[in-house]
């Protein structure tokens, strides 16, 4: 079973297309200066019609951010408290000043995700599922710390007829009933977007947070790299 899961994930990753282009060695400078500890994930904004997209993307983010060593504000509690404050729609939250949101929770940074694509195209022999997410991490003072946009698609026809069954096996029952192909694809995109950069010049990913065991080592490397480049 483990091998099957691995094979499936590999196939998904293989079709994921990165649109990150040129490498900018300074792209994480603001992040490195700010070194945020706590991240407030606000409900994602949805450019598409599927109402499950917003909550599915929201529910899958805490794991990746928490395991990267950040304090992730509890997403459902935040959603509930924002509603108490009068923010019912993600669009309202996204258009509010980030300084105000960060101050409400005393968060170091706010993560905004926009769902640009969340579709399944039904072909004659297969269904092609496509997702496209934009991520923006903004500091409590309103400055941009990190930005990424990634898309991925999954087509069972690329690997034979048994793959739909495989996807269903790879996720927990509740997730399976909700969204058989979207969830693994969504998690794959989160994992790629939030990968830890191997060097300052890497053009993808964000640094580890202070609760991660590699935190000190990461920032030592950043300091050494920038000393070399000066």
């Amino acid at each position: 079973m483990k091998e099957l899961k691995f094979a499936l994930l590999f196939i998904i990753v293989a079709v994921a297309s990165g649109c990150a282009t040129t490498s900018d060695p300074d792209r994480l400078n603001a992040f490195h200066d700010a070194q945020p500890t706590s991240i407030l994930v606000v409900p994602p904004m949805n450019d598409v019609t599927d109402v499950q997209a917003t909550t599915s993307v929201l529910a899958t983010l805490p794991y990746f951010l928490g395991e990267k060593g950040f304090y992730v504000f509890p997403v459902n509690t935040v959603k509930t408290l924002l509603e108490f404050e009068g923010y019912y729609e993600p669009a309202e939250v996204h258009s509010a000043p980030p300084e105000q949101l960060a101050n409400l929770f005393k968060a170091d940074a706010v993560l905004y995700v926009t769902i640009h694509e969340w579709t399944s195209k039904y072909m004659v022999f297969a269904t092609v599922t496509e997702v496209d997410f934009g991520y923006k991490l903004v500091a409590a003072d309103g400055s941009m710390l990190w930005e990424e946009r990634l898309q991925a698609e999954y087509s069972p026809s690329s690997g034979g007829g048994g793959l739909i069954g495989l996807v269903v096996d790879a996720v927990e029952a509740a997730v399976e009933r909700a969204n058989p192909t979207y969830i693994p694809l969504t998690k794959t995109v989160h994992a790629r977007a939030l990968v830890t950069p191997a060097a300052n010049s890497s053009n993808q990913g964000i640094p580890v947070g202070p609760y991660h065991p590699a935190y000190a080592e990461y920032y030592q490397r950043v300091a050494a790299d920038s000393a070399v480049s000066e």
Partner: protein
Amino acid sequence: MNKRLIPLAMAVVFVTGCATGNNQLYDWGEYEQTLFVVYHEPEYKEQALNNYLTFVREHNGEGTLAPGLYAEAGTFLLEQGDVSGAVAFYKMEYERWPESQPMLGILIENLEAQQ
């Protein structure tokens, strides 16, 4: 080409790590699944919340529970009208994670004033 392969390989490692539960910083239990059920499947909500609350209670304030998960248990109880149960979980989050203190300090104070 190599540059592209490294993040791809890391993504695979990361995602499989999630699937097998190895080398994680924290216990997450069925947190993600609980949120899916709460948002999308009202017919299974009660059972999912009971399972989640049992899981969080087993940790009883200890540090291995993932960030935010005590507070989420508090919010689920608050929604059910159990204010003192909610406050107990909010206090566990407050003690465990200093980052939560500004948010939860006010919330706990307001809820205790209501009682």
